């Protein structure tokens, strides 16, 4: 009887304490804002994935890991440049870590796989780079910060025709979504201004030898290759070795051509190349000098395009979370991100109602000192017209 009394008392005391414990936990939780980041830290996109991680962490460090007086817990996972791995990590961040939003990844295939799930669980994703039309047309919870793939490269096509005076072009790109869409944007811009694309070639994803594509190149005013990551290292070398003389203008730099660590490896292979990028360390945007210095102090290297991309996307996340104070319904956060309009190190960032970034394309030429010099820019937006996304040059 005595023993039973003790047990009953213990249970009673615990029952009284439980609401206090529960409220303490939720209070603790409310004091903390959880932000997830899925980045391509290994695999094909690892060089630019690691850069984006550095940029994101620097942004949160600058804010002292605090938003609206609350502590920010940043949970970074490796998507491994692989859609399946990314999906597993997305589930973990949402279901185990209970993040309010996710930054990244860069891999467009991985973003496509995450999108339906994030729509279902109502967790917004803030992209770092460009992405394809389907995400904008079908998925409400994805934010394409740098715009659509073909939207981003449209100004490069316009620039090649208008400013560089090229009338014909031959293209070469990786045979998957990003390669096709990046090239399509350039082609649209080029042809809209009266240029003619006389040849388009596509190489398989695992290509290491570009000999067959170089020997098949048709002579034109400019050569327009899109080479991301590892391909840039083999491609640029082989173009030179095999005697490609046409001036090179890249529709997008693939995270390589304006990246200082990559330039260090490639050396003169990038000299005189004109390319479009979301960011370079030479930009004269508000706050960029301070960002470049802070990045260099922390990591002992100058920031690449995805470093600036990651930093800017983190700035977007922080601005939206500041607005909601890290609480409220998911729809409140969605609206806050949609209404973000801030100046970042890569220029102004805002979104259309389809959550597509109103994007600045910066155009650089790598000079003889291997420094990316800003030579042009274009600002575009993409809006839904019927069942398509239509791109418009606004500046």
């Amino acid at each position, binding site marked *: 009887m005595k023993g039973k009394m003790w047990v009953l008392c213990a249970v009673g005391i615990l029952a009284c304490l439980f609401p206090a414990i529960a409220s303490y936990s939720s209070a603790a939780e409310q004091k903390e804002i959880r932000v997830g980041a899925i980045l391509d*830290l*290994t*695999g*094909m996109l*690892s*060089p630019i*994935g*690691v850069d984006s991680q550095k940029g994101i962490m620097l942004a949160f460090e600058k804010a002292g890991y605090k938003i609206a007086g609350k502590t920010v817990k940043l949970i970074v996972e490796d998507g491994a440049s692989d859609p399946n791995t990314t999906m597993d990590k997305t589930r973990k961040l949402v279901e185990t870590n209970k993040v309010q939003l996710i930054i990244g990844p860069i891999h467009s295939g991985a973003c496509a796989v995450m999108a339906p799930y994030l729509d279902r669980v109502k967790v917004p994703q803030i992209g770092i780079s460009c992405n394809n039309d389907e995400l904008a047309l079908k998925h409400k919870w994805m934010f394409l910060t740098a715009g659509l793939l073909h939207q981003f490269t449209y100004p490069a096509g316009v620039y090649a025709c208008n400013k560089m005076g090229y009338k014909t072009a031959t293209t070469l790109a990786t*045979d998957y979504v990003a390669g096709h869409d990046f090239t399509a944007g350039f082609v649209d811009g080029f042809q809209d201004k009266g240029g003619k694309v006389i040849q388009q*070639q*596509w*190489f*398989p*994803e*695992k*290509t*290491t*030898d570009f*000999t*067959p*594509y*170089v*020997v*098949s190149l048709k002579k034109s005013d400019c050569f327009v290759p899109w080479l991301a*990551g*590892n391909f840039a*290292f*083999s*491609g640029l*070398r*082989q173009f030179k*070795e*095999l*005697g490609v003389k046409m001036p090179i203008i890249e529709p997008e730099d693939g995270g390589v051509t304006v990246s200082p*660590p*990559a330039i260090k*490896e*490639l*050396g003169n*292979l990038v000299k005189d190349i004109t390319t479009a990028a979301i960011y370079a360390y030479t930009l004269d945007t508000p706050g960029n000098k301070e960002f470049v210095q802070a990045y260099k102090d922390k990591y002992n290297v100058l920031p690449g395009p995805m470093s600036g991309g990651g930093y800017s996307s983190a700035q977007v996340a922080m601005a939206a979370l500041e607005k909601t104070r890290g609480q409220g319904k998911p729809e409140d956060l969605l609206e806050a991100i949609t209404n973000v309009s801030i100046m970042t190190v890569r220029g102004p960032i805002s979104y259309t109602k389809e959550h597509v970034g109103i994007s600045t394309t910066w155009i650089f030429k790598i000079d003889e000192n291997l420094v990316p010099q800003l030579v042009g820019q274009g600002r575009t937006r993409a809006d839904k017209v019927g069942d398509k996304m239509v791109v418009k040059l606004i500046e």
Partner: protein
Amino acid sequence: MDVLAVVILGGLSYGVVLFLVGMGLSLVLGLMGIVNAAHGVLFMAGAYFGLAVAKQTGHFWLGLAAAMAIGALAGLVIERGLLRRLYNHQLEQILVTFGFMYIVTNLHLWIYGPRPKSALVPQALAGSILIGQFTFPVYRIAVIFAGGLLCLVLWYLQEKTKVGAIIRAGMDDPQMARGLGINLTPVNVGAFCLGAGLAGFAGFAGAPVLGGANLATGTEMFFTAIAVCIVGGVGSVQGALAGALLIGVATIFVGAYLPDMATYVTYMLMVIVLLFRPAGLLGAK
């Protein structure tokens, strides 16, 4: 005509790199029946380590020697450390070497970082020759000749030396070879290290042909080496050469003239050979 010449030379130089990496896997598979899934990362390790040594010392040839040495050393670690306990356990061999592949890849990520490394070419071979409207690097022509020479040396070793005879005996009938008093263990270890060293050598020597060293080559080169073994046949220099050159030249040829088929060339060759000559073009019938 100049297009054809460049395509053939490009295919041959690519094929020679495939021969060097495929030969090692073919030797180990033929002699010991082991599918070394870590073979591709030996190629990658040779490329990275060789480039690091060459850039540090300023000597290409030192880098080449270092690449071969690191491949052979890694081979010794794999064979003596992991595989000697797993003879006749093929599934376990594949699993263990697969795991080793991931470990080595991540080790390289940790040591060298995620970015690819650009290749080095010795000054004497740094130029290009003019072929019609194109230029073709002298280095890739040197690779073709060097590969041919190495092929002759390996063939001589295989066909005309006592060591080669022992290796062939071990491949054909290991029980009989042991019965005749031949200790196959040092032969197996030696062959494994030779194969691994060849992979490391191929990684560094092939880096200028493939555009540098990157972390993806570990897995990519393993599957390509498997294709070389399937197409050419396992366990012989001639088989590895035939398989490698066929895949190399076909890949470049198809890429130039039938680009839509470029993704499938290697797999199509494998299917055709498996259908009509399952042992490989020059494998035992």
